[in-house]
């Protein structure tokens, strides 16, 4: 029977299938971090259960860790308690851990891929909704709750009901200055924050095939913001080239056997999706959110929408609330919105390519006096690579703070927060009320737009800087 990619990966992991019950799926890789795991380990301890496969489990410290003064004890007592609990649990249950100070430490979704732990056709889970990032390799990767974390720790499996499949076809080629972040923001604006509910999205088409692995990760990362459980992209030569030689990638004869299998991981020509959405890449432009969910986005050249544009009463109320929270007036051109803070980082856009793109914009320019800008690499490895390339020098010369690896200002769990009432342009993935700190106002953007905004002092693309310099 013809199958989609997601169905192939699913079927290859069924441990037990019984009519009327969820399938029991085997999990190839279980990533854990300090926030969603303590209660799961607690549960195991209470029931006297061991971790079934510590060798398929990995812990990193990312959400809570500070991005400066990392040689000092974590100042916040609760953050410190969570991180310490993770260390104790990892030690007690024999799970490998990358702690603060380890060269492999970083955001869980940056660390897995860069070590070659995420491979095509695998099932990957983590107690974090942006686990969908790993789908960029053709893996079935999704976020789980803490009780599921406990379940995977105890059994290395999960009982799951099959997802529906949705094809997101992005045909054509992207115009200059338009990135994978703009693709995914446009997709979410099109289908809505609930549009992907119950689905695994498969991103397809010419524009997706042309993306690097890092850009593909940015797209898959935000699948969850469209409500989808997971998002994936069929592996191809770009995937294999990225993986070859990485620490945990197969070697020698194993590599050949793996590649041969990975090449079968494509949606069959005659397979059908439960839903199909198409987008023409050539019509896209830099995208930015104006509201308080990732679906409330527009081209940067547009203006703040009005509640009168709503299609129904619910949407009208939601626009009104968002405008009030964001402190915006309908009709204001997006490019006239001044920002106070710029954050470049997170599991969406904290990889080396993202930092290169931001650095190219900052090179020879200065951050506006009214703006505080920070760049936070997604992992220690990314930080070292950036420093080897001299990107840190470009950032600091432009007046941008250069930090240590972690989730940082993506969410308000560590010392990095947007101040109440302040406005940020952020390369992260969520613009919910209070996400970057109580009262913070977030505009989601690509690394290029973030950098250009830092320089201009208001939402801007690199092209706007060139125009105003000329």
């Amino acid at each position, binding site marked *: 029977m013809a199958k989609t990619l997601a169905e192939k990966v699913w079927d290859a992991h069924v441990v037990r299938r019984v009519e009327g019950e*969820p399938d029991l799926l085997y999990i190839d890789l279980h990533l854990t971090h300090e926030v969603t795991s303590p209660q799961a380990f607690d549960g195991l301890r209470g029931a006297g259960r061991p971790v079934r496969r510590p*060798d398929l489990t990995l812990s990193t410290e990312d959400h809570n860790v500070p991005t400066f003064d990392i040689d000092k004890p974590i100042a916040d007592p609760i953050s410190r308690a969570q991180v310490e609990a993770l260390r104790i649990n990892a030690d007690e249950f024999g799970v490998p851990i990358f702690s603060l100070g380890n060269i492999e430490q970083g955001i869980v979704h940056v660390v897995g891929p860069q070590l*070659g732990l995420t491979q095509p056709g695998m099932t990957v889970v983590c107690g974090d*909704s942006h686990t969908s990032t790993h789908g960029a390799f053709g893996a079935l990767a999704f976020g789980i709750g803490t009780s599921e974390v406990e379940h995977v720790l105890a059994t290395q499996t999960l009982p799951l009901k099959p997802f529906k499949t949705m094809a997101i076809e992005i045909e054509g080629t992207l115009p200059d200055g338009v990135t994978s972040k703009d693709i995914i923001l446009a997709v979410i604006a099109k289908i809505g924050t609930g549009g992907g509910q119950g689905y695994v999205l498969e991103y397809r088409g010419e524009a997706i095939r042309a993306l690097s692995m890092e850009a593909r990760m940015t797209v898959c990362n935000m699948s969850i913001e469209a409500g989808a459980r997971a998002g994936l992209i069929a592996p191809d030569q770009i995937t294999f080239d990225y993986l070859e030689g990485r620490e945990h990638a*197969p070697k020698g004869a194993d590599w050949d056997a793996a590649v041969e299998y990975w090449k079968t991981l494509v949606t069959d020509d005659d397979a059908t999706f439960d839903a199909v959405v198409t987008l023409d890449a050539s019509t896209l432009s830099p995208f930015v959110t104006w509201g308080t*969910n990732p679906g409330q986005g527009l081209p940067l050249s547009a203006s703040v929408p009005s509640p009168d544009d709503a299609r129904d009463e619910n949407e009208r*109320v939601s626009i009104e609330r968002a405008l009030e929270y964001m402190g915006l007036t309908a009709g204001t051109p997006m490019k006239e919105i001044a920002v106070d803070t710029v954050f470049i980082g997170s599991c969406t856009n904290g990889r080396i390519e993202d930092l290169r793109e931001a650095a190219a914009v900052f090179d020879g320019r200065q951050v506006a006096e009214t703006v505080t800008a920070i760049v936070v690499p997604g992992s220690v490895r990314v930080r070292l690579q950036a420093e080897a390339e001299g990107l840190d020098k470009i950032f600091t010369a432009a007046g941008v703070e250069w930090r240590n690896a972690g989730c940082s200002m993506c969410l308000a769990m560590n010392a990095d927060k947007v101040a109440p009432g302040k406005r940020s342009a952020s390369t992260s993935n969520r613009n*919910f009320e209070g996400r970057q700190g109580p009262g913070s106002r977030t505009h989601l953007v690509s690394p290029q737009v973030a950098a250009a905004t830092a320089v201009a002092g208001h939402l801007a693309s690199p092209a706007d800087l060139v125009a105003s310099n000329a």
Partner: protein
Amino acid sequence: MEKFTVHTGHALPLRRSNVDTDQIIPAEYLKRISRHGFEDALFAAWRKDPDFILNNSDYADVSILIAGPDFGTGSSREHAVWALQDYGFKVVLSSRFADIFRGNSGKIGLLTAVVDEAVIEQLWAIVEADPQAEVTVDLPSREVRVGDLVASFDVDDYTAWRLIEGLDDIGLTLRHEELITEFEANRPAWLPTTR
């Protein structure tokens, strides 16, 4: 986990759609490492507003939440379910739930019952007019009843069975441990380990 069959209690009308898990429990509360005591964290940001419905003393002892569409979107944090349960909620009614939230709820005994949007409107009207209205949620017959209103709700059979029996997930799976061991023996050798 506790068995769930029929529950009767007072209901809170939450006239908001797209209530994401950051609103149900803000990230700052996720730092705790215990499993209980999250009642203060529930809707913490909104509760700072004295006019927020949860601060209304008419709704002091609610156990059923009647919410707008797309409840539980956003972050996968299970703390959202704990906060609702610790506060005393046994049931959330909505016309649409986010998948992860729904999954998390069913596994630890919070019933997420899907009803038509029109029913939500009716329920809102009833419990707004009379906060003391007794609302009954009957899982075996999949009905919500209040006064003359009788409406059916959706919940998948498997989750319903689990809730009614009060069954824990891990114990269920470990009944099939030999199948897991067999599967492991056949995994390709090239697959990575974290060591």
